[in-house]
């Protein structure tokens, strides 16, 4: 089998995972935020790999996300319908903290001076109320756009989701005048109502597009110099990947691709052992991401936000909480114990790193209770100062009149509770019972906390993947090709049953053509869904549609689907006397990326096991620490036990047992 490589650029480290002939190679180098592609090639060099040998290079990076957070994207002009130049600044007229007198609105990525208007008006049914004034567009707008020396132009006209004739015409006139310009029309990004959210999404797409384009060009150029002849793909926030050419047309999906890669990696690896209903749980240094997976499909959400700015494009429904290994433990001025959101980060890091950190963190708590040991942390490669950890916790212990161990235990339970809340948000609040799912922990801290979190939720099975620290890089290679499209179309259920199949078929055809134009071979599979609501409501429920919905659909099937989702979300059936309508239709096209490489535990060196006492559940308990590489597949293990690995540590409490299966997944179950 040829060489397949995943390179994931994170905020601090760039991770690489390479597969060749059944062997797995892992590399970690510092990221180079000024020009992240340098870090990617450093990782390739560190692993001594030759791009010319690569058949598949999967890539994920925080380039788009950082461009927005640091406001270092393109110089964007925004064009909208006359009368509405300020929609990006007016936003939704609300404040996110109602008692904050010094509240600041999220800052758009476009300056007010760079917002322009064109005279036109389309109505909600697509009718043209006022024709586009091309004369003033040519006489005034085009010169202003030329003079502004913009990198990109975003266009969002009112009701363009219903009829984008004017939007397309404006695009064409700008492109005829400025052929090199990146122009993004809102209807090309999303075709859904609510002008502020659509305009925000369109401007963000325009803002990151030139950045992504330049970035991918640099990588492609360097790859060409290195005689790379394989397939270069980029991860998207929806959990699928696209060839680089596709990503350049669709840059908005590059935001938040990092957490999505981890979810996909976890799904694929757990699937090998037959687990398809999962809750993924990725705990890093500053935050934790969780996502619910039904039958191998991660949940998606149609909207998200970055830095307070809304994005309406389907992304994996990942909930993030500010609770990680580096989260600071503190007591507020009302005497409540708190964990995070402030983090000690990588520098100075937790007190136990001995790099000058004085404030207690969750990692310090894990050292105090004995779960993280100087001998076993990250394969013994990292020095741990247990005394510094205890010293940092002393004030917290004093405040509550507890022992240091009790205070550390309390902090861990509180950090776990934040994750429990996040999991409830993606499960119970969406009408799912967490007990029906296996928990898949990964990231540096996930496997350390997972069992206790599972207990809180009544979850009885954990699937701990091999090498949980590099699962995101693996996800880059394990993901399918995916692209989504949607269309707002308001229809009563009777009309919908007639019209929806044709609309879905049209959307599916467009996606199929798009895949073909990107050189992707094979017939994609399509999944269909409708956003539905009671007539008169403003928020829609996502209703999955049958597989053959693009050829035929009944009114009964639509109503039944709505009722089912309504029961899940509101714990009551949909009122049969109220009329229901379809508001938007969605299609996802997926093409499998081919045979998957396999993750495995590296067994070249084995550390000896030893007895280790652990403070857990209020008392010290006898346990042991064992190198994961020494565990024989199938052997029964019993807690309390710590399994140390090169990228992560797994904690199995008393009353839990574990077994390594043939896929190198560690299956941890409640009960002896």
């Amino acid at each position: 089998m040829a060489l397949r490589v995943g390179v994931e650029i994170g905020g601090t480290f760039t991770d690489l995972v390479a597969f060749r002939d059944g062997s797995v190679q892992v590399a970690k180098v510092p990221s180079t935020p000024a020009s992240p592609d340098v870090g990617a090639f450093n990782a390739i060099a560190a692993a001594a790999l030759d791009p010319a040998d690569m058949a598949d290079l999967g890539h994920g990076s925080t380039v788009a996300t950082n461009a927005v957070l640091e406001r270092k994207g393109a110089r964007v002009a925004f064009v909208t319908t006359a009368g509405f130049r300020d929609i990006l600044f007016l936003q939704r007229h609300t404040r996110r903290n109602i008692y904050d007198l010094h509240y600041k609105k999220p800052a758009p990525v476009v300056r007010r001076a760079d917002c322009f208007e064109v005279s036109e008006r389309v109505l909600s049914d697509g009718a043209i109320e006022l024709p586009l004034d091309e004369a003033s567009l040519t006489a005034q707008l085009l010169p202003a756009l030329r003079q502004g020396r913009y990198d990109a132009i975003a266009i969002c006209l009112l009701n363009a989701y219903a009829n984008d004739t004017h939007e397309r015409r404006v695009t064409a006139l700008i492109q005829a005048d400025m052929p090199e310009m990146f122009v993004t029309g809102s209807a090309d990004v999303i075709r859904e109502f609510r002008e502020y959210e659509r305009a925000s999404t369109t401007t963000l797409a325009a803002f990151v597009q030139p950045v992504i384009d330049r970035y991918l060009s640099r990588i492609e150029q360097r790859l060409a110099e290195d005689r790379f002849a394989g397939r270069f793909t980029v991860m998207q926030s929806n959990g699928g990947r696209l060839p680089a050419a596709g990503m350049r047309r669709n840059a908005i999906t590059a935001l938040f691709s990092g957490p999505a890669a981890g979810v996909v990696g976890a799904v694929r690896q757990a699937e090998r052992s037959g687990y398809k209903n999962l809750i993924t749980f990725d705990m890093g240094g500053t935050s934790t991401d969780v996502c619910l997976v039904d039958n191998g499909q991660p949940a998606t959400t149609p909207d998200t936000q970055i830095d307070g700015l809304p994005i309406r494009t389907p992304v994996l429904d990942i909930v993030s909480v500010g609770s990680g290994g580096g989260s600071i433990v503190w007591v507020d001025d009302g005497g409540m114990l708190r964990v995070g959101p402030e983090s000690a980060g990588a520098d100075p890091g937790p007190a136990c790193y001995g790099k000058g950190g004085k404030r207690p963190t969750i990692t310090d708590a894990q050292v105090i209770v004995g779960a993280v040991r100087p001998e076993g942390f990250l394969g013994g490669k990292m020095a741990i100062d247990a005394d510094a950890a205890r010293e940092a916790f002393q004030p917290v212990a004093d405040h509550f009149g507890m022992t240091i161990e009790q205070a550390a235990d309390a902090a861990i339970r509180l950090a776990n509770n934040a994750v429990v809340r996040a999991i409830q948000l993606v499960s119970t609040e969406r009408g799912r019972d967490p007990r029906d799912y296996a928990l898949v922990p990964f990231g540096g801290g996930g496997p350390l906390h997972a069992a206790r979190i599972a207990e809180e939720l009544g979850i009885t099975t954990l699937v701990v993947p091999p090498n949980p620290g590099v699962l995101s890089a693996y996800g880059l290679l394990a993901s399918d090709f995916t692209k989504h499209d949607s269309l707002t179309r308001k229809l009563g259920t009777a009309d919908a049953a007639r019209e929806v199949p044709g609309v879905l078929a049209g959307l599916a055809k467009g996606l199929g053509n798009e895949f073909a134009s990107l050189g992707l071979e094979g017939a994609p599979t399509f999944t269909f869904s409708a956003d539905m609501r009671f007539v008169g409501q403003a928020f829609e429920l996502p209703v999955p549609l049958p597989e053959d919905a693009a050829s035929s659909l009944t009114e009964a099937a639509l109503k039944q689907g709505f009722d089912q989702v309504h029961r899940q979300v509101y714990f009551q059936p949909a009122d049969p006397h109220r009329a229901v309508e379809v508001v938007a239709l969605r299609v996802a096209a997926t093409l499998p990326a081919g045979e998957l490489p396999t993750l495995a535990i590296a067994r070249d060196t084995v550390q000896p096991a030893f007895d280790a006492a652990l403070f857990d559940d209020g008392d010290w308990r006898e346990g042991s620490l064992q190198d994961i590489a020494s565990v024989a597949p199938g052997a029964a293990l019993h807690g309390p036990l710590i399994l140390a690995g090169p990228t992560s540590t797994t904690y199995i409490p008393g009353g839990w047992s574990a077994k390594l299966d043939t896929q190198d997944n560690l299956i941890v179950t409640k009960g002896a």
Partner: protein
Amino acid sequence: MTLDPIDYAVISQAIQAAADEAGTKLVKSAYTPILREAQDGSAAILDREGNVIAQADLIPMQLGGISATCKPCLERHPPETLKPGDFLMQNDPFQGGQHLQDVFIFTPVFVDGEVIAFSASVAHHLDLGGGAAGLNMDAPDVYAEGIRIPPSKWNWEEDWNGGKLEALLRLNVRVPDLTLGDFNAQFAANAIAENRLQQLAAKYGAAKITAAMSELLDYCERRMRAGIAAAPDGVYHGHAAIDDDGTSEEPVHIRCTVTIKGDELEVDFEGTDPQVATNINCPFASCLATALSCVKSVISAPDIPFNEGCKRPVTVKAPYGSILNPRPPAPVRARLLPAYRAYNAVMDALAKAVPAQVIAPGYDTTTSFCLAHLGEKGYSVYLEIFGGGYGAGAGNDGVDAVDSPLSNCSNTPVESLDADYDFFRVTGYALAPDSFGDGEHRGGAGFTRRYEILKDGVKLQTYADRHKLAPGGVFGGADGMSGRTRLFRGAEVITVPPKANLAFQKGDVIEISLGGGGGYGLPAKRQPAAREQDQANGMVSMVTASTQRIAAE
């Protein structure tokens, strides 16, 4: 019972989460734009005695007085007289309610046959009958404003779900399907929180839940007391005024005295003008919510949750018969207008105690704008609430174009209005340059909205304030701009009074201008870069910019 700190932290977060979830579902399952888009509704969890424990952060005005609204219900129907399926309901401004449109529903949460808490929701209902659709500016008394629901006990199966209360309401409101849909959204929200609390009790036992609730009150009380204690003791006076009562040209004055002594604070509105004949009277529950919201915002960190504990060290008094504590049957629909001046008066007093913690007066006005049309299929009612620019603070410019401090309503997307209403169209929505007060930190900008009327017979009912008296700057900052409403009819431009009703003709264009906030500190101290940015972005006109430069030099 004593709780260990972890159980306490875990349970209190779960209670907060239950309130948040109820708030989200209230909005998401609503029908009318005022609830589903503007989000003019709130959810909370109360203990068995009716003290607010946790709330979804939606509308400060509705939340601040919710205990005062619940307690009259409990006096008539103590928890031990309730059975599962019962709910308490009321909206009476003279028995702890606010204005009639805000209907409060309290659902008892039973664990092992005992009430351990109440889940509560309130929604602003688009129309509850009364003399005009949505809003009756001519109401001479509360009877003309809609149905009054006394503090009362009902049962969901017997009275609501096809029952007599539901039937009574259906017959007395103008958009019954949508309105009953919003009531159902309230019941759904209450059911969610009830469900979550029961799950929590099943896990930890009712005793721990009750203990955690009681500790949450103590916790907020401690933090609030710490904030008050940090402010200097003293007696501080504050004042603000409403333009007029809608019948005369005379301003209506609100006066207050804030007394800080140790870790306790008293707000007394003695000296405030008497109640008026028009609907700008503020029921006491609203007055209480106003004073508490202001004190909490200034005195305590924004991360302290608001509950009844925050209220313990604070006393609020208003003379009976004044505009802040009216006698029945005063009309009260536009209570937010006097409430905002009460907010400004308390802030004015606190500015003398803790100058670095206050902000300048903002536009701080609820401009309520209601269009109604009676067509062949019945009434179509549109109601939207507008804020303006915030006042500037010691370290920040005021925020532009948001809802005012006591409220937090979203705008309704123009594309949503285009799809839902055929008798008007929004033709412009823009920030208002030059509308804010200059200063070391400038006030937030106001904005304008324009509507074209598409049919004859469309009616407008509106109330607003600050068309005459603009928000003042503080510590040398300049005043913000006042607002105005104008009607364009053919070549004619007609100024519409702030409190008005009128009938439109097809083709009329109406424009509402919302003013900006006051500045904080001397304009000469403003950073040149901030000035240049405003100029480049067209937020100050060239004339204003050059005047400012000369003043600064």
